């Protein structure tokens, strides 16, 4: 060991500096990326950019239909993946005992999480678009994204539910509640902050995804009205604008809007979750 030759005091100092530097570096990288995108993007962002349709494939005009498409697919993915993920987590933590089936479900979720998003995209095309006949639509896109958000939501929900003290469950059951009443009235409310964070993490992944929806939503630049209409969410728009050399300025504008939406969602949920936790724990 290298540390054998230096005094404990010195090694303590060195390691403290190393950890401090890693922390600072992480923040600096984050600030540089977000700062650069915002700086570049802000040049084109104004109310008109946000609220008008693109003109000439996006060289001019705004990104209103893309914002709506993004909200559509993200909301659909959340609405589908949240109940499924939380439901599976409840089953695993509350209703089952450790065994082969449980291991299989957990393994399945982990595998699902590691599949490349473009593969999801391909699956989305053949299953939702073609086989189920949903066509190129925000619904197809939302469903593919639901599959991608599912493992995140499931995993975070499982950990949060598992962290609810056993004494809460015992207290509830001893008062003559059924298992379901205990889950619904005590366990889920106690795990709600963690579960919410998981759902937001999953949806943040959905809103940022381009490859997975590439073959599922179509690329229409009109505002999707029904869930069966095609759309073009922000990341996809960004991808097309940049790779086809349409307008790098507007690509940055789109990226900045995307980043701002994600930031707003994260900050708002964190604030709400903290407030709820404070109320719950009486601090």
């Amino acid at each position, binding site marked *: 060991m290298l540390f054998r030759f230096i005094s404990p005091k010195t090694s303590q100092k060195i390691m403290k500096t190393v950890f401090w530097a890693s922390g600072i570096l992480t923040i600096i990288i984050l600030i540089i990326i977000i700062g650069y995108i915002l700086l570049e993007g802000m040049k084109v962002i104004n109310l008109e950019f946000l609220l008008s349709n693109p003109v000439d494939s996006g060289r001019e005009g705004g990104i209103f239909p893309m914002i709506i498409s993004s909200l559509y697919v993200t909301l659909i993915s959340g609405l589908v993946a949240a109940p499924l993920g939380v439901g599976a987590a409840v089953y695993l933590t509350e209703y089952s005992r450790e065994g082969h089936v449980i291991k299989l479900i957990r393994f399945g979720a982990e595998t699902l999480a590691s599949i490349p998003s473009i593969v999801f995209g391909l699956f989305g095309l053949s299953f939702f678009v073609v086989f189920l006949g949903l066509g190129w639509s925000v619904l197809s896109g939302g469903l593919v994204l639901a599959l991608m958000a599912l493992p995140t939501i499931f995993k975070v929900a499982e950990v949060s539910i598992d962290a609810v*003290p056993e004494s*809460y469950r015992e*207290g*509830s*059951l001893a*008062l003559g509640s059924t298992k379901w009443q205990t889950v619904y009235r005590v366990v889920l409310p*106690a795990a709600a902050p963690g579960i919410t964070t998981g759902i937001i993490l999953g949806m943040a992944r959905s809103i940022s995804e381009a490859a997975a929806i590439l073959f599922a939503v179509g690329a229409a630049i009109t505002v999707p009205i029904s869930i069966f209409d095609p759309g073009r969410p922000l990341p996809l728009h960004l991808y097309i604008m940049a790779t086809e050399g349409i307008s790098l300025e507007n690509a940055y504008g789109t990226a900045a809007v995307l980043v701002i939406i994600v930031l707003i969602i994260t900050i708002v949920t964190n604030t709400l979750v903290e407030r709820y936790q404070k109320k*719950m724990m009486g601090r």
Partner: protein
Amino acid sequence: MNRIEVENLNVYFDEAHILKDVNIKIPNNTVTSLIGPSGCGKSTFIRTLNRMNDLISGFRKEGSIFLDGNEIYEPSVDVVELRKKVGMVFQKPNPFPKSIFDNVAYGLKVHGINDKDVVEERVEESLKSAALWEEVKDKLDKSAMGLSGGQQQRLCIARTIAIEPEVILMDEPCSALDPISTTKIEDLIHKLKKEYTIVIVTHNMQQATRVSKYTAFFLHGEIVESGRTEKLFMEPEDKRTEDYITGRFG
């Protein structure tokens, strides 16, 4: 009259034989203490009385437990109904992370009592019975987690009596509390025994003499001796009881 009668109770967790031929009668509206060294099966015993052990895998029992003359392990018995009649207060105060009001109202809601006036009245009554009302009446909507340990334990007692059980099981209810809070809980036990049958597990022998009329001494999963508390402490019949209460082991 006896509220609970236990006959030849044997309890196993997988292969481990935890309770051996336990026989005890627990009379109405009295306090019965269960004493004995750690790991002697007191807690396991008390948890068979409201079937909390059903939740643990590998639990198996032989023998009978009668509540008001009815075997509580009959397949026809609804565990939910049983636990409504046999309430439990745990070692560590375990209020729910909800408001003080919602904690006490919890049992009522679970059992389908939703009428607002009835619930409010019962919550107030229960908090008064648990000698907590004066301390919390102005902050019923605040989280129960903000209360002190002793207040939390009295809240758990209030929560239990809100659903009007016949029996209250207490599993070392004071072991996590300071002496003043302990005195308050003991005073409360004296008050509650007029209406409820109380079975209390305690490590504290002074506590057993202070609160209970009857005491049973558990050792290695067996009841060595049981009877009137003063008799058991003043003139124990068994040598092992004498050794334990004089502090020679345990």
